[in-house]
């Protein structure tokens, strides 16, 4: 008989695994990613691949140093997904070393120094993005207008390698500019009237489809939304955090926009521009760095949404989603400590529920007094 080892119940398992979750998340990201790669061309593809390969490489090095199994560590897909998410938040024509440095920060500093998968306090991709944004503000804020692959103006592979190695040559400058949120933010700072400039640089339809300047994979609201809904449907992520994040952005945005449309950006712009949807569905839902209870997830998600709005509107970084995520990541242990589910048969403080009066027999007083004998 082969049945010599002891097995604990259950003897059945839901068809889930970490690798499966990671694969499904990448699948959900694929449409938005492909659109990004198509419309930002060869430089974006080089950056994307470079970031992913670097992430895997750093993960492998860390696993070897830590004496952990390398093969299974790489195959769970967590490092690949971290690299992928990081690449999607980078300016599409950023030089190669931005991606590689970002991967180093994400994998080594953001994740492995904490002890590897499941141990990190902060979302690794967001740690990298913030570190890059603060350290290299120029490279991290050059947004090119979409140049679909195989169109006339688009750089070829050879030129793309040049862009990737040497950064943007001056003659590409014509095509770069601020992102929508940056532009609108500057307009507000100049004291301009948002209703006057309208949505000249930006139509809702374009933003929905994603043919606007922006980070590599953040431009298409529609594709990210579909990917997110797919993940909720598959049970990979819950609906609570995304909903809370979106409401956290939309509620204050709507209120203030109603109050003064000339100074406050319309809620749908907040929703579709920048990293809102990517954050709501793919970043904030990172299991490792988000709270585990339903109530905690509501607080966490709403906090991220609100912070995104506050940073965008009143802070110095119009693309401030990463800061919002990191701030709430820091609050996660505290949220988990205070917002636990109520235990069955106990009240919120952990005391057993009282035995209802009507359930005790007539001579209950005596029994209850000595009831501990049960």
């Amino acid at each position, binding site marked *: 008989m082969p049945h010599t080892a002891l097995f604990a119940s259950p*003897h059945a*398992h839901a068809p889930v695994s970490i690798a499966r979750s990671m694969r499904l998340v990448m699948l959900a990201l694929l449409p938005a990613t492909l659109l990004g790669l198509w419309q930002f061309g060869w430089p974006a593809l080089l950056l994307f691949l470079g970031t992913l390969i670097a992430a895997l490489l750093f993960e492998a090095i860390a696993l070897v140093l830590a004496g952990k199994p390398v093969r299974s560590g790489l195959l769970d897909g967590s490092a690949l997904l971290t690299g992928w998410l990081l690449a999607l938040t980078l300016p599409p024509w950023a030089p190669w070393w931005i991606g590689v440095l970002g991967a180093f920060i994400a994998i080594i500093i953001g994740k492995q120094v904490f002890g590897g998968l499941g141990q990190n306090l902060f979302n690794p991709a967001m740690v990298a993005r913030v570190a890059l944004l603060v350290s290299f503000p120029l490279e991290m804020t050059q947004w090119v207008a979409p140049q679909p692959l195989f169109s006339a103006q688009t750089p070829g592979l050879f030129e793309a390698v040049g862009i990737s190695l040497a950064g943007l040559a001056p003659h590409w400058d014509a095509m770069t500019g601020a992102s929508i949120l940056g532009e609108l933010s500057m307009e507000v700072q100049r004291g301009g009237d948002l209703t006057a400039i309208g949505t000249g640089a930006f139509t809702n339809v374009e933003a929905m489809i994603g043919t606007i300047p922006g980070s590599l994979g953040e431009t298409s609201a529609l594709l990210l939304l579909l990917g997110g809904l797919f993940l909720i449907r598959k049970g990979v992520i819950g609906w609570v955090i995304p909903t809370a994040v979106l409401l956290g952005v939309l509620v204050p945005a709507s209120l203030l926009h109603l109050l003064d449309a000339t100074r406050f950006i319309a809620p749908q712009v907040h929703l579709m521009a920048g990293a809102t949807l990517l954050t709501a569905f793919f970043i904030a839902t990172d*299991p490792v760095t988000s709270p585990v209870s339903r109530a905690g997830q509501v607080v966490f998600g709403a906090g991220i949404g609100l912070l995104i709005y506050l940073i965008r509107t009143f802070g110095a970084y119009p693309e401030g989603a990463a800061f919002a995520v990191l701030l709430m990541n820091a609050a996660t242990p505290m949220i988990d400590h205070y917002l636990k589910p109520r235990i069955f048969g106990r009240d919120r403080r952990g005391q057993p529920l009282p035995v209802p009066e009507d359930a005790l027999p007539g001579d209950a007083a005596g029994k209850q007094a000595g009831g501990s004998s049960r």
Partner: protein
Amino acid sequence: MQLFRIRGGVHPDDRKDLTAGRAIESLPMPRLLHIPLQQHIGAIANPLVQRRQQVAKGERIAHGQGAVSAPIHAPTSGRIAGLGLYPANHPSGLSVRTITLQPDGEDRWHESIAGVPDPFALAPAEVAQRVADAGVVGMGGATFPAAVKLSLAKRYRLTTLVINGSECEPYLTCDDQLMREEADAILDGMRIMAHALGVTRVIIGIEGNKPEAIAAMRQAIARLDQARFDGIEPEQPKPDQHGSGRTGSDWAEPNPKVAGRASLMQLEVATLPMRYPMGSEKHLVQTLTGRETPARGLTADIGVVVHNPGTAFAVHEALRFGRPLVSRVVTVTGGAVRSPRNLRVPIGTKVEDLVEYCGRFREEPQRLVAGGPMMGQPLQELRVPVMKGTNGILALTAAEVGSQTPAACIRCGSCVDACPCGLVPLTMAAQVRVGNLDAAASAGLMDCIGCGSCAYVCPAHLPLVQFFAHAKGELAARGRAKQKQSATKRLAEQRSARLEAQKRAKREAMARRKREAAAKQRAEEQAASQAEPARAAPVAEVD
């Protein structure tokens, strides 16, 4: 009726199609029966028979000891082949005290076996006593002596009897099939139990994936209502030789007394949502009544007692026919079994005989399990016996088990969503892992019912139930050690106090003796000194 929502739970693939609707077959009498003396929660039974003794079916061969225990009866007539140690139907595979019975093939009931004409005329305590004498235990797997639960009316104000027909464990269909085939008998057993408990409300909860069982129980209630309307009580079927097959659809002999009493009872069938662990006693009660049992308490605290349909059937057999619990229905199933079946099996039959009858394995099973896949226990070998609580034997293929090497916890919170008890399994597991059992306990470890929902959904395939079972066992052991330690300390203190007292007594005695001796000496000296002049005087006189 209105149902209430419970927290958490999972939806495992129920795989009941393997055996659902398969009529219960009686297993041919095996060559030997190995009847363990510990088949129930509580004190081990004490053997009453000797080697080579002839016993009849239903004869008591071991009696229960203490308040929580159960007697054991001969599953068939035959000769006691031995009393000794035999591998237990337990994950440890260790040997336990077991009576081995060699059937004589006659399957002859003991002559004293006789039912009560009207169980409802008995006092509740007498019903409970008869159930206790019949060795009936919880047939859902928990094997808590049924009579103890039928005597709760003495200490609690009870309102409702709930029959737990949820059978939420995947694969198992023994309760389903029993309800389909023996609805009238189960209904009768339920009413007898309600009588013993003094309750008038009885709810049978059945998960929606068993529409035939629901219909069968509803029809049985309708038949009973019709009989009440006609002023008659359905006649109980005559006992047949093999004991379990009964029809129960024809009636005669009106018995208005019984019908009148029965009409006070409110019988309901509730269709439960399909969600594991719906069959967890406290969660079932919450679903049906909306009331939550206080932690560390019993459902009786909120006026409810829960029994399994198999137990109701056994109570019916015990009261109507006087038959003790000597056989049970076992679902033999799993992807590795060639032809899965529901079998009525004498207690003590080797699992091997069941597997043999089901055509052995179509492929080598990766895991053998006694019970359901969610809470069942792994079996080390096939020669272990079927016990009163064995509701299923599963031979599972690797694909069905779906086990993977555990990975790191990614804090996804799936376990938190799945936990029906509102616990945070990932935190408790982390605490257990580093040996901080007290922290795990204060996080609610002892409120864990071990249902396995958390481990079932864990994407990292962490053996969470293993962690918790280990921690509970370790804490219990520590508790015992602590108790022992404090008892030892108390005894040691008493001993040193005793020794001290002895020493003191000795010292005091010594001191007293010394004092007395000194006093005596003084007295003597005094006497001597008084005598001296007297003595001197004559000397003087002599002078």
